[in-house]
Structures are given as structure tokens and as C-alpha cells.
């Protein structure tokens, strides 16, 4: 009985080792995954450039323009002013 148990342990160990080596050999000789036609550099080039992430201040400060266009005027010569002026009364 003892001899039978020892033989069974050896058999299981041998079959496990054989299975492991067989799997390794199968995977090592299997076909590689298909490579993309474009190189990685080409793929990166085709992607649109991303806008820089806005700073925290620019989205929370009082100077946020809410998507409006901004124009900084130069002061006008008083003599060149037209007849009408719109102003808060």
C-alpha cells in the first residue's frame, strides 16, 4: 500500500511537470499577435493636439470671461470723439 502511494505521488508530480513543460513549449511556439500597420509614432501624429488644461485660477477667478472675446482699447483723443456717447446715466 505504501509503495502504491509513493508511486502515485511520483506519477502526479511527473504528469504535472510534463503538463507545465508542454504548455510552455506550446505558447513559446505559437504565432505572435498581429502588429498594427502604422508605427506608434504615426498614430500619435494623427491624433488631434489637446488643448492645455486650464489652470484652476482661470476657471474660478473673477477675471473669467465666460467664453467672451476680449478687446483692450487704447484711450481716444477727446478731439476725435463723435457727437454721441453712450454711457450709464
Amino acid at each position: 500500500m505504501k509503495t502504491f502511494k509513493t508511486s502515485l505521488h511520483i506519477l502526479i508530480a511527473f504528469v504535472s511537470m510534463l503538463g507545465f513543460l508542454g504548455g510552455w513549449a506550446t505558447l513559446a511556439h505559437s504565432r505572435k499577435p498581429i502588429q498594427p500597420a502604422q508605427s506608434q509614432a504615426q498614430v500619435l501624429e494623427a491624433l488631434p493636439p489637446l488643448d492645455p488644461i486650464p489652470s484652476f485660477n482661470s476657471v474660478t477667478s473673477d477675471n473669467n470671461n465666460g467664453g467672451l472675446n476680449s478687446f483692450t482699447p487704447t484711450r481716444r483723443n477727446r478731439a476725435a470723439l463723435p457727437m454721441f456717447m453712450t454711457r450709464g446715466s
Partner: protein
Amino acid sequence: MESFHFRAMNTDISLAAEGKPEDLSQGFEKTRQFIAESEARFTRFSEDSELSQLNRAAGTWFRVSPDMLNVIMLAKDYVDLTQGLFDPSILPDLLRVGYDRTMDIIRAEGVSLPLYPFTRQRTPLNGLVIRPEESLIYLLPGASLDLGGIAKGWIAERAAAILAEFSPVCAVDAGGDMYLSGLPKGMNGWPVALEDPQSPGEALTILNIPPGAVATSSVAKRTWKQGEKQRHHLIDPRTGEPAETDWLSVTVIAAHTDQCEVFAKALLIAGALEAPAIAENADIAYLAVDREGNILGTQKSMEYINDL
């Protein structure tokens, strides 16, 4: 271009028209008369005005003139269009923060009411009810209206219609609220300076305005001190206090002067965060001036700037 200047509605009025002086003098006089009569009707600074009588009649039905009915109905529509940022029933708040006399008197003598804490409890337009077919208006007891800005715009446009009977190319400027009729000879628009809100009398830029209207609202001009607090005349209906806005002035270019006046006020109260959506919703072109003196606006609005 002939011009005629006088003072009314606590501001400077300018009339201008193309034509011979002898043909225009009657037009100028007729227009001036209309403005004087309208001021007497809409002012809150005279006990005898129709507006003061209406305000005193709060709690009862009051029959108003066709002009008063017209302006009050317009005001009611604008309350909705501006999402409540324009509201003529803020008069009790305006009085509480010290604007109880004309600005000329306040500048000379200071405010008469001290600063005191308050709790705000009101609804938009404060329960105003209109029966247009009977020309009847009902104000809740304690409610009162200030039609100052909207009436000034409405008067300017009506005055321009009177002047246009004498010259199709004419303009009425009521303290910066303008109606421009026709086009001056050889021009594709009316050149209008945009005042620097931080330097009264100085221009930030020149606008090119097509026939129609333009008006500006500012928090930098009608200001006073109540106790230690700096006040201005632009009340935010949501708080009952002078608006805390990140802009100094807003100029609106549109078809009607009352529309420009109302939206300039509403967008200035709204400020940079809320104004773009309100203006887009109402299809309003506007230019805002921020505290650094920059002019802000949509791409379409920027086209009115002649300097670009």
C-alpha cells in the same frame, strides 16, 4: 447735422437731425415738449406724477394713461425675458439703500436714510396685476414701481419718432440711451463713443451702430455712501441690495431703446457667469467693460467696435 441740447429726466438730452435749421427748429421743440410731458408722467421724484399717484394707490385698482399702460406692460414682459433680473418693483429697496431723492440732490447733500439690516420677502413684480382692456393696474399694498430706466428708453424712441416726422435721419440721446433713425449721409452706421466707466467723459472706443437703439448701464456713475457702505443705483432683485457684479458697465445694441436699457441693466447685474446665457436666449448683442478696462463681448457684438 443740426443739434439741440437741453436737460430733462435728470440727464443731458441731445437731439440731432439732418436738414436746414429753419425746418428743424419746430421738430426740436415738439420733441422737447414730448420729453418734458413724459418726464412729468413717469418721474418718481414728483408727488404729482402719474407714477407717484399709481404708487400711492397701491392696494386699489388705478386707471392709467395709455402711455403708462404701454410702459408697464412692456416692463412685465421684460421681467420674464430677463429671468427676473429686471424688476421695476424694486423701488422700496432703492429707497431703503438711500436713493430717495434725485441724484443731483444726493450728490450735494448725501443720503437721508441710515443703513439698517433687513430681511428680504418679495415675489417678482411684487404682485402687479394688469387689466389692459380697462387700463387698470393693481399693486399690492406697500408695493411701488420705479420706471426710471425703461421709461427713459421708451421716451427716447418715441421722441425720435416725433423728430423723424421732420427729418428721416435723426437721433435722440437721453443720457446715453439712444434711438438712431436712418443713416447719416455717406455713412454705414452712426459713430457712437463708448464711455470709459472709470473716467466719465472719456471714450474707451468708438462703436458703429446701425439704425436702431443703443443703451448703457453702469455701476460706476450713480453712487453714494450710506453710512460706511458704498451704494449704487442698480438693485439686484434677488437680494434687494446694490448688485455685486464683476463688470463696470454693459452696452446693448438692439432694435428698441427700452429693450437696450432693460437688458443692459439685467446683464450688468448678471455679470460674467450668467449674462452670456441670458443674452443668447434673448438674441441680444452686448459689450461689457470689466474692472481692468477691457471690452468683452461675443464675436457678433465685437463687430460693432470701429477700432478693430
